[in-house]
Protein backbone atom coordinates (compact mmCIF):
# COMPACT_ATOMS: atom_id res chain seq x y z
CA UNK A 1 0.00 0.00 0.00
CA UNK A 2 1.23 3.47 -0.81
CA UNK A 3 2.44 5.61 2.07
CA UNK A 4 -0.20 8.22 2.86
CA UNK A 5 0.81 11.54 4.38
CA UNK A 6 -1.50 13.42 6.74
CA UNK A 7 -2.45 16.49 4.68
CA UNK A 8 -4.01 19.58 6.25
CA UNK A 9 -7.33 20.79 4.85
CA UNK A 10 -5.82 24.27 5.11
CA UNK A 11 -2.61 23.49 3.19
CA UNK A 12 -2.00 26.41 0.84
CA UNK A 13 -4.88 28.38 2.43
CA UNK A 14 -3.56 29.29 5.86
CA UNK A 15 -0.82 31.79 5.10
CA UNK A 16 1.06 33.63 7.84
CA UNK A 17 0.17 37.30 8.00
CA UNK A 18 -1.91 40.02 9.60
CA UNK A 19 -5.59 40.42 8.78
CA UNK A 20 -7.87 43.32 9.68
CA UNK A 21 -6.99 46.46 11.59
CA UNK A 22 -5.51 46.00 15.05
CA UNK A 23 -5.41 49.00 17.35
CA UNK A 24 -2.21 50.41 18.90
CA UNK A 25 -1.92 47.36 21.19
CA UNK A 26 -1.39 45.02 18.23
CA UNK A 27 -3.48 42.05 17.06
CA UNK A 28 -6.25 41.04 19.46
CA UNK A 29 -6.36 37.51 18.09
CA UNK A 30 -3.62 35.06 17.17
CA UNK A 31 -4.49 32.02 15.10
CA UNK A 32 -2.57 28.90 14.11
CA UNK A 33 -3.45 25.43 12.97
CA UNK A 34 -2.52 22.50 15.18
CA UNK A 35 -1.34 19.84 12.76
CA UNK A 36 -0.83 16.92 12.53
CA UNK A 37 -3.08 15.73 15.34
CA UNK A 38 -4.27 12.32 16.48
CA UNK A 39 -7.98 12.31 17.28
CA UNK A 40 -9.82 9.20 18.38
CA UNK A 41 -13.48 9.08 19.35
CA UNK A 42 -14.37 6.52 22.03
CA UNK A 43 -17.96 5.64 22.75
CA UNK A 44 -20.10 3.18 24.66
CA UNK A 45 -23.82 2.42 24.68
CA UNK A 46 -24.49 1.76 28.36
CA UNK A 47 -23.30 2.84 31.80
CA UNK A 48 -21.72 -0.55 32.29
CA UNK A 49 -19.64 -0.55 29.10
CA UNK A 50 -18.83 3.14 29.53
CA UNK A 51 -17.49 2.50 33.03
CA UNK A 52 -15.31 -0.37 31.84
CA UNK A 53 -14.12 1.67 28.85
CA UNK A 54 -13.09 4.64 31.02
CA UNK A 55 -11.26 2.31 33.38
CA UNK A 56 -9.33 0.67 30.55
CA UNK A 57 -8.58 3.96 28.79
CA UNK A 58 -7.21 5.33 32.06
CA UNK A 59 -5.00 2.25 32.30
CA UNK A 60 -3.73 2.62 28.72
CA UNK A 61 -3.18 6.40 28.66
CA UNK A 62 -2.83 7.34 32.32
CA UNK A 63 -5.67 9.83 32.00
CA UNK A 64 -9.30 9.17 32.83
CA UNK A 65 -12.09 10.50 30.60
CA UNK A 66 -13.99 13.22 32.49
CA UNK A 67 -17.28 12.16 34.04
CA UNK A 68 -18.69 15.68 34.03
CA UNK A 69 -20.37 16.85 30.79
CA UNK A 70 -18.64 19.80 29.14
CA UNK A 71 -15.25 19.21 30.72
CA UNK A 72 -11.86 17.89 29.65
CA UNK A 73 -9.01 16.08 31.40
CA UNK A 74 -5.29 15.86 30.66
CA UNK A 75 -2.77 18.52 29.84
CA UNK A 76 -2.51 17.69 26.16
CA UNK A 77 -0.72 14.36 25.69
CA UNK A 78 -3.39 13.30 25.50
CA UNK A 79 -6.35 15.49 26.32
CA UNK A 80 -9.75 13.84 26.67
CA UNK A 81 -12.86 15.89 25.93
CA UNK A 82 -16.43 15.01 26.85
CA UNK A 83 -18.49 15.16 23.66
CA UNK A 84 -21.73 13.46 24.65
CA UNK A 85 -23.27 10.85 26.92
CA UNK A 86 -20.86 7.89 27.00
CA UNK A 87 -18.71 9.57 24.32
CA UNK A 88 -15.32 11.31 24.36
CA UNK A 89 -12.68 12.61 21.99
CA UNK A 90 -9.06 11.70 22.75
CA UNK A 91 -6.67 14.25 21.27
CA UNK A 92 -2.93 14.80 21.07
CA UNK A 93 -0.26 15.99 18.64
CA UNK A 94 0.47 13.03 16.36
CA UNK A 95 3.42 11.06 17.72
CA UNK A 96 2.25 7.48 18.28
CA UNK A 97 -0.44 5.07 17.16
CA UNK A 98 -3.17 6.45 19.44
CA UNK A 99 -5.98 4.67 17.58
CA UNK A 100 -4.14 1.38 17.81
CA UNK A 101 -3.53 1.86 21.52
CA UNK A 102 -7.24 2.50 22.21
CA UNK A 103 -8.55 -0.26 19.98
CA UNK A 104 -8.40 -3.02 22.66
CA UNK A 105 -10.41 -0.98 25.20
CA UNK A 106 -14.07 -1.78 25.85
CA UNK A 107 -16.66 0.12 23.83
CA UNK A 108 -16.01 1.42 20.34
CA UNK A 109 -13.24 3.62 19.01
CA UNK A 110 -12.83 5.42 15.71
CA UNK A 111 -9.82 7.26 14.35
CA UNK A 112 -10.95 10.76 13.35
CA UNK A 113 -7.48 12.23 12.81
CA UNK A 114 -8.20 12.76 9.12
CA UNK A 115 -11.69 14.09 9.76
CA UNK A 116 -11.14 17.19 11.89
CA UNK A 117 -9.17 20.40 11.58
CA UNK A 118 -7.90 21.98 14.80
CA UNK A 119 -7.41 25.73 15.08
CA UNK A 120 -5.74 27.30 18.09
CA UNK A 121 -7.00 30.80 18.85
CA UNK A 122 -5.52 33.09 21.45
CA UNK A 123 -5.45 36.74 22.40
CA UNK A 124 -7.29 39.34 24.43
CA UNK A 125 -10.26 39.58 22.03
CA UNK A 126 -10.94 35.87 21.41
CA UNK A 127 -13.89 35.77 23.80
CA UNK A 128 -15.40 38.81 22.05
CA UNK A 129 -15.02 36.97 18.76
CA UNK A 130 -16.79 33.92 20.21
CA UNK A 131 -19.61 36.16 21.46
CA UNK A 132 -20.23 37.18 17.86
CA UNK A 133 -20.21 33.60 16.63
CA UNK A 134 -21.87 31.34 19.20
CA UNK A 135 -24.67 31.68 21.78
CA UNK A 136 -22.79 30.47 24.87
CA UNK A 137 -21.69 32.24 28.02
CA UNK A 138 -18.05 33.00 27.19
CA UNK A 139 -17.33 35.02 30.32
CA UNK A 140 -13.88 34.21 31.74
CA UNK A 141 -15.45 33.29 35.07
CA UNK A 142 -17.75 30.75 33.41
CA UNK A 143 -15.95 29.17 30.46
CA UNK A 144 -12.69 28.43 32.26
CA UNK A 145 -9.72 26.19 31.41
CA UNK A 146 -10.92 22.60 31.64
CA UNK A 147 -14.27 23.45 30.05
CA UNK A 148 -15.18 22.27 26.58
CA UNK A 149 -18.39 22.82 24.65
CA UNK A 150 -19.91 21.85 21.37
CA UNK A 151 -21.96 24.57 19.83
CA UNK A 152 -22.93 26.19 16.54
CA UNK A 153 -20.21 28.76 15.90
CA UNK A 154 -20.68 30.89 12.81
CA UNK A 155 -23.42 28.38 11.86
CA UNK A 156 -21.10 25.38 12.02
CA UNK A 157 -20.77 22.57 14.53
CA UNK A 158 -17.61 23.35 16.46
CA UNK A 159 -16.06 21.81 19.57
CA UNK A 160 -14.34 24.46 21.68
CA UNK A 161 -11.74 23.49 24.28
CA UNK A 162 -10.54 26.15 26.76
CA UNK A 163 -6.85 25.46 27.38
CA UNK A 164 -5.87 28.70 29.12
CA UNK A 165 -7.95 31.79 30.00
CA UNK A 166 -7.13 33.28 26.58
CA UNK A 167 -6.21 30.16 24.59
CA UNK A 168 -8.76 27.91 22.89
CA UNK A 169 -8.70 24.95 20.51
CA UNK A 170 -11.47 24.76 17.90
CA UNK A 171 -12.30 21.40 16.36
CA UNK A 172 -14.25 21.52 13.11
CA UNK A 173 -15.14 18.94 10.48
CA UNK A 174 -12.42 18.93 7.85
CA UNK A 175 -14.70 19.93 5.00
CA UNK A 176 -15.76 23.08 6.88
CA UNK A 177 -12.28 24.13 7.98
CA UNK A 178 -11.71 26.64 5.22
CA UNK A 179 -15.11 28.23 5.71
CA UNK A 180 -14.66 28.52 9.47
CA UNK A 181 -11.22 30.02 8.96
CA UNK A 182 -12.60 32.67 6.62
CA UNK A 183 -15.45 33.50 8.99
CA UNK A 184 -13.08 33.80 11.95
CA UNK A 185 -10.76 36.08 10.03
CA UNK A 186 -13.68 38.20 8.79
CA UNK A 187 -15.28 38.45 12.24
CA UNK A 188 -11.90 39.15 13.81
CA UNK A 189 -10.94 41.92 11.39
CA UNK A 190 -11.95 44.64 13.87
CA UNK A 191 -9.48 43.23 16.42
CA UNK A 192 -6.71 42.27 14.02
CA UNK A 193 -5.92 38.58 13.44
CA UNK A 194 -2.30 37.46 13.37
CA UNK A 195 -2.04 34.14 11.53
CA UNK A 196 1.09 32.12 12.17
Amino acid at each position, binding site marked *: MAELARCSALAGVLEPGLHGRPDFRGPGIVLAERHPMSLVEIAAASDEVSGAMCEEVAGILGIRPPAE*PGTATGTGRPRILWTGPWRWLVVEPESRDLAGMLEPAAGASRDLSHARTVLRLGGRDVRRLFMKGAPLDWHPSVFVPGCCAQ*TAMFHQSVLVDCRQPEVFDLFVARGYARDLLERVIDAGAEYGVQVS
Partner: protein
Amino acid sequence: MIRITCPYCGPRDHQEFAYVGDATLTRPSDDAGADAWYDFVYLRDNPRGPHLEYWQHVHGCRAFVKVLRDTLTHEVLATGTAADDLVAGGR
Protein backbone atom coordinates in the same frame (compact mmCIF):
# COMPACT_ATOMS: atom_id res chain seq x y z
CA MET B 1 -35.21 32.81 20.87
CA ILE B 2 -36.10 29.65 22.81
CA ARG B 3 -33.70 28.42 25.47
CA ILE B 4 -33.76 24.66 25.97
CA THR B 5 -32.06 23.04 28.95
CA CYS B 6 -30.20 20.00 27.65
CA PRO B 7 -30.05 17.41 30.47
CA TYR B 8 -26.33 17.07 29.76
CA CYS B 9 -25.10 20.47 28.52
CA GLY B 10 -27.37 22.83 30.43
CA PRO B 11 -29.30 25.79 28.95
CA ARG B 12 -28.59 26.33 25.26
CA ASP B 13 -30.16 28.34 22.46
CA HIS B 14 -32.63 26.49 20.27
CA GLN B 15 -30.45 27.13 17.21
CA GLU B 16 -28.19 24.35 18.54
CA PHE B 17 -31.15 21.95 18.37
CA ALA B 18 -33.12 20.27 15.62
CA TYR B 19 -36.84 19.73 16.10
CA VAL B 20 -37.64 16.04 15.88
CA GLY B 21 -41.35 15.73 16.51
CA ASP B 22 -44.29 14.77 18.70
CA ALA B 23 -43.21 12.85 21.80
CA THR B 24 -46.68 11.64 22.72
CA LEU B 25 -46.91 9.02 19.99
CA THR B 26 -46.44 5.32 20.63
CA ARG B 27 -45.12 3.15 17.84
CA PRO B 28 -47.73 0.55 16.82
CA SER B 29 -46.89 -3.14 16.68
CA ASP B 30 -45.57 -4.38 13.35
CA ASP B 31 -48.87 -6.13 12.57
CA ALA B 32 -51.13 -3.29 13.77
CA GLY B 33 -52.50 -2.66 10.30
CA ALA B 34 -52.43 0.21 7.83
CA ASP B 35 -54.78 2.53 9.72
CA ALA B 36 -52.73 2.47 12.92
CA TRP B 37 -49.53 3.03 10.95
CA TYR B 38 -51.11 5.83 8.92
CA ASP B 39 -52.04 7.57 12.19
CA PHE B 40 -48.58 7.07 13.63
CA VAL B 41 -46.68 8.27 10.59
CA TYR B 42 -48.90 11.11 9.32
CA LEU B 43 -51.55 12.32 11.74
CA ARG B 44 -50.72 14.91 14.37
CA ASP B 45 -52.70 16.99 16.82
CA ASN B 46 -52.00 20.70 16.66
CA PRO B 47 -52.52 21.74 20.27
CA ARG B 48 -52.46 25.29 21.56
CA GLY B 49 -50.63 25.17 24.89
CA PRO B 50 -48.27 22.63 26.43
CA HIS B 51 -46.94 20.12 23.93
CA LEU B 52 -44.58 17.23 24.54
CA GLU B 53 -41.96 16.97 21.82
CA TYR B 54 -38.51 15.64 21.00
CA TRP B 55 -35.63 17.88 20.06
CA GLN B 56 -32.09 16.76 19.26
CA HIS B 57 -29.07 18.68 20.55
CA VAL B 58 -27.53 18.23 17.14
CA HIS B 59 -24.81 20.92 17.35
CA GLY B 60 -24.03 19.91 20.94
CA CYS B 61 -23.94 16.48 22.58
CA ARG B 62 -26.29 14.99 19.95
CA ALA B 63 -28.61 13.62 22.66
CA PHE B 64 -32.36 13.50 22.14
CA VAL B 65 -34.10 15.79 24.60
CA LYS B 66 -37.74 15.61 25.62
CA VAL B 67 -39.25 19.09 25.88
CA LEU B 68 -42.59 20.28 27.26
CA ARG B 69 -43.17 23.50 25.34
CA ASP B 70 -46.13 25.87 25.25
CA THR B 71 -46.89 26.27 21.56
CA LEU B 72 -48.63 29.61 22.18
CA THR B 73 -45.96 31.36 24.25
CA HIS B 74 -42.88 29.23 23.38
CA GLU B 75 -42.24 28.91 27.10
CA VAL B 76 -40.23 25.76 27.85
CA LEU B 77 -42.00 24.22 30.85
CA ALA B 78 -39.75 21.19 31.38
CA THR B 79 -36.98 19.21 29.70
CA GLY B 80 -35.39 15.83 30.27
CA THR B 81 -33.78 12.87 28.56
CA ALA B 82 -35.80 11.01 25.95
CA ALA B 83 -36.78 8.40 28.54
CA ASP B 84 -37.91 10.87 31.23
CA ASP B 85 -41.54 11.49 32.12
CA LEU B 86 -41.95 15.25 32.25
CA VAL B 87 -44.12 17.25 34.60
CA ALA B 88 -44.71 20.96 34.06
CA GLY B 89 -42.67 22.99 36.49
CA GLY B 90 -40.07 20.22 36.79
CA ARG B 91 -36.54 20.47 35.53
